């Protein structure tokens, strides 16, 4: 792991200058807190410590549970020899990423630089329940990245980390396109076999980089696995240029077959569910759902759409606008209006981040609540999801598999979220501001205050009445079947 070492070498200098005065203060604070905590324990005040541990254990336990089946599946997943190893690296990377275990070499992690200090911070600012998800902060710059990281990949990575590219499929496509560049840029060293050298020495750094920008989505995982597979299957004595062309074609094919065409097919299918006079409820923004609705509209169905949206991303606004401009009758509610929304709706369309093997749906945080309310109101809940997003993983709750986004998003979004928090007193905006600011930036200084910004939650299968994928309409129970068919049969 030479580059890893190098990376760490770079990491230090990289980290040092980054310590803004704020962070210094933070550190000081942290140490003070450490002292206070110590005193507390001496006084024998039943502090969080025990609780913490307890909860930690719990999590560990889950992690194990979680991993075991996964590995098992992996075994099942790999028919051929040489991919297994390749794949497991990928997998395990992913896993370690999520479980954020220390011993893994993460090029840029302040932790590895100043363990003690980082630890302190984590204690105060990371929600214990999700400590296993709290990986290093999303990479916002190139510093400390692997030397070979391709500019396009870097660019894509940043776009992902700040949601310019958002949504499972979109990210997947972006990544693949980037990889095409990568492949073109790659120069095979003398006397190395493409398959042998490219994947571990050139492709993986790229993937790692993307991961460091934002944990990769299921669809990306599948795509990578697919890519690695075809690379593995390469005919050794095909010469470099040919190989590159071949791979690029393959990638294009993949995008075309598994995403572009699929979306169309699904939209076709799903739009059939929208009848005249129906009121379609949807949450946040899903590309497919948008397609579906527009399709139905194009087919001349008369219906209304209710978009429920939530902080901090407000994806629903884009959806609302695009539907509005398409001439649809759109109603837009904040998440709090959910109960109100389900009263009128006749159909709930959801997109997916990924469909888990136990039939549960992993999607934007809040989806579960929406599905729950809809289920209670006896509204059919339909998930539109390309098979490429189907996953071999399982999860029982939203805690094991998840992604923790930077807490700051929850704060910084606010000014734009609502212009000058309304309340009844229009007056003294400046005051309001001031008041907000305090809650905005000081949260790090307030001991015991944590802000949790989860990305996804897991919707129980019993809420989901139908999953629409390119293989047709299937019940959630047959997700694993489709997954095998689509993602492992290849």
């Amino acid at each position: 792991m030479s580059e890893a070492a190098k990376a760490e070498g770079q990491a230090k200098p990289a980290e040092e200058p980054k310590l803004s005065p704020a962070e210094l203060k933070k550190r000081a604070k942290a140490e003070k807190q450490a002292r206070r905590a110590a005193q507390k324990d001496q006084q024998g005040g039943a502090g969080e410590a025990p609780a913490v541990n307890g909860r930690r254990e719990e999590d560990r336990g889950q992690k194990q549970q979680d991993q075991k089946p996964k590995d098992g599946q992996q075994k099942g997943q790999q028919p051929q020899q040489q991919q297994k190893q390749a794949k497991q690296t990928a997998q395990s990377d992913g896993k370690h990423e999520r479980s954020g275990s220390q011993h893994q070499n993460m090029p840029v992690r302040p932790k590895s630089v100043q363990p003690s200090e980082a630890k302190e911070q984590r204690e105060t600012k990371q929600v214990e329940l999700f400590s296993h998800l709290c990986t290093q902060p999303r990479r916002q710059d190139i510093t400390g990245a692997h030397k070979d990281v391709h500019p396009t990949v870097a660019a894509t990575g940043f776009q992902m980390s700040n949601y310019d590219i958002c949504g499972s499929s979109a990210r997947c496509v972006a990544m693949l396109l980037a990889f095409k560049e990568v492949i073109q840029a790659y120069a095979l060293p003398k006397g190395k076999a493409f398959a042998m050298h490219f994947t571990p020495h050139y492709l993986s750094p790229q993937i790692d980089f993307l991961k460091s920008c934002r944990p990769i989505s299921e669809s990306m995982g599948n795509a990578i696995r697919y890519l690695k597979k075809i690379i593995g299957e390469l005919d050794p004595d095909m010469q470099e240029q040919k190989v590159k062309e071949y791979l690029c074609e393959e990638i294009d094919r993949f995008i075309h077959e598994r995403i572009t065409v699929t979306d169309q097919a699904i939209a076709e299918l799903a739009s059939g569910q929208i009848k005249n006079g129906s009121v379609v409820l949807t949450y946040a923004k899903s590309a497919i759902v948008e397609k579906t609705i527009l399709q139905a509209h194009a087919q001349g169905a008369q219906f209304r759409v209710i978009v429920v949206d939530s902080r901090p991303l407000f994806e629903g606004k884009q959806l609302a606008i695009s539907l509005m401009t398409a001439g649809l009758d759109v109603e837009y509610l904040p998440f709090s209006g959910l109960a109100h929304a389900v009263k009128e709706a006749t159909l709930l369309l959801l997109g997916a981040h990924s469909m888990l093997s136990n039939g549960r749906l992993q999607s934007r945080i809040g989806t579960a609540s929406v599905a729950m309310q809809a289920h209670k109101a006896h509204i059919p809940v339909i998930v539109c999801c390309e098979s490429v997003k189907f996953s071999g993983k399982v999860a029982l709750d939203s805690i094991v598999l998840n992604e923790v986004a930077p807490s700051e998003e929850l704060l910084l979004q606010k000014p734009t979220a609502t212009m000058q928090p309304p309340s009844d007193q229009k007056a003294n905006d400046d005051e309001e501001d001031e008041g907000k600011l305090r809650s905005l930036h000081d949260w790090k200084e307030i001991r015991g205050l944590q802000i949790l910004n989860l990305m996804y939650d897991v919707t129980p299968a019993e809420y989901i009445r139908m999953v629409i994928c390119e293989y047709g309409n299937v019940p959630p129970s047959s997700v694993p079947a489709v997954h095998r068919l689509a993602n492992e049969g290849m």
Partner: protein
Amino acid sequence: MAPKGKKGANAAKPKQGEEEPEEPLQAVILADCYETRFNPFTLEKPRCLLTLANMPLIEYTCEMLAGSGVEQVFLYSGNHSDQVEQYLQQSRWMRDTSPFSLEIIRSTSRSVGDAMRDLDQKQLIKGDFICVYGDVVANVQLEAALTAHKARREKNKKAIMTMVLREAGDSHRTNSQHTRPCFVIDPHTQACVHYEQMKPRKSPRLEISDEVLKDHPEMEIRSDLIDCGIDICTPEVLAQWSDNFDWQMPRRGFVHGVLKDFETFQLTIHTHVLTDGYAARVRNLQTYDAISKDVVSRWSYPYCPDTNFLPDHSYKMKRGFVYKEDGVVLARSSVIGRKTVLGEATSIGDDSVVLNSVVGRRCVIGKRVKIEGAYIWDDARIGDDTVIDTAIVGNDASVGSKCSVQKGALISYGVRIADGTTVRENTRVSQLKRKRGYEEDEVVRGNTDPKVVGEGGDGFRLEFDEDEEDVFETLVAGVQDLAVDEDDSVSEFSDEEDEDEEVHHHRKTSRTESFTSIGSEESGEARQSAADFHHEAANSLFDSLQKGQDPDTIQLELKALTLATNAEGKQIRRAVAVAFSKRMAKFVETGKSAKEAASSTVSPNRLLIERCVDAASVEEQVEFLLFLQTDLVHRPQGSKLLLFASFELANNDLADADGFQGWWEAAQSSATEELKKVKVETKQVVDFLQDQDESSEEEDDEEDED
């Protein structure tokens, strides 16, 4: 909530205040906007009593003031003062439980300026006061603005006024699309250092004086502000008005003026930008529509129907913004669509559909009626099988059965439309019309015109005497907007206050609609002064033409006049056009042929036209032609005159092919039958020029080939 709490600490609440009140907070409501934009409705009723979402406009304004803790209100009422007074007398604002004392001042003033000067004489204003129009719909609290204003005053006595502006997005429906005020603000002092009208879709050009640039290292240029005409003024403001008797309008007159002689008086005008709350003015039909929609979909919360500000209101809101008052009678099969307001004791017959509309009280709507996007005021009756689309039906009006009221039609009070009649787009049907003297208007009953209201109907199509043509144009614009789907219609009002220098709209509808804006650009006082200027200029021009003075001197006089009233291009063009047509008409009356008339009028005085119509600018030409045309409508042999005049213009290269082309295609040039009639003959000129053009081009080509 905590921020509030902190606010409590230093907000301007009396209990925190250091001093006890020594003077009440005063406000001035300008109930009359000195304009006729809401004709025919304003013929009988003051604008501030028109109902928006079934509540008179004045109520919104008063609520807003009360909500800001105003303690003393002076209301300037122009037209129909008696009605205003009568209404307010039995409103809660005149009771002793009213939060403020209300004093109605009847005035003959013909502009805001006059009103202000009058106010100054009356010596009623003790301290700082709020100045608003009688048609402001706003849920904002001015507390913050007032506090800020105060603070400034403490520091600098010269800060005489604070304009309260609402920050809005790029495309807010109550915000203008085609022209909007552009404030240049010093971010530190919040002082407005420069004010201008901007045309977003045109390359914005601001003429900011060097001094300003020198004095203010930092400047914000804001064109995203809704100017809802709420000003916080110091007594000094009144003094200023009095000193400058020629100022008519708060913005273009006052603000411009003050900013202009900043060097001399050092007076500053400040802005307070609201970032939340709702604030808008009902200036014309488009805004009426837009704001109604806002109120119904609660953007003006809590100023919504179901707040029932009026004691006798009993609105309840159901899902989908459906507001029903008690005792609404709905046939089982009737359908009430979203965003609808139904007043008390209104009944709706079987299979009728009401959608996106406001229906007043005691209305009777028959069976199988379809009403969409319409405003139906109290006691109106709609017969069976009638279709009403985006129109306004006034109080007590009745529309027979099987009628069709098309987009933008206005049916005024008490009008009766007979069964099976179709009311055309944009027609204004009224019982009354206005005889216009320059000083005072008298309103007289017109005689019924069966062609419009059908046999047995009552009412006639309200025509426009020449001084109302601008209003008429507004209406066109307004109607078009009413008609266009909500998306941007509502977002446009063609006349923001004192956009009167504004000439060209750039609307998707058509470029030449620029003409629309002539009147529409002017709000009350603007129009008034414009009218004055126009009148004066036109007459003097005409006289001098009669006298056959030499063009240069005439031009000189004109110039002087222009400067005096700082009128701008458009008005001059108009004046010239009118003068010319008058002149020609005179010739004709004296028995000359139209041809001679034209030739002997135009060519000798071509200078005048040259000066005011830039031969390079197609717009100006088009405009001039339109003016000419519109004026000639009323002249004997108008069409002939127009034809020959056009020839003359062409020959003198005062207007070129494009100009004519543009004019010919202009919507307004054929907005009414008369206009069409007048211009038909001129077609030949247009065509002729066109061919000429092309041929010339061809020649060019040939040359090129050589």
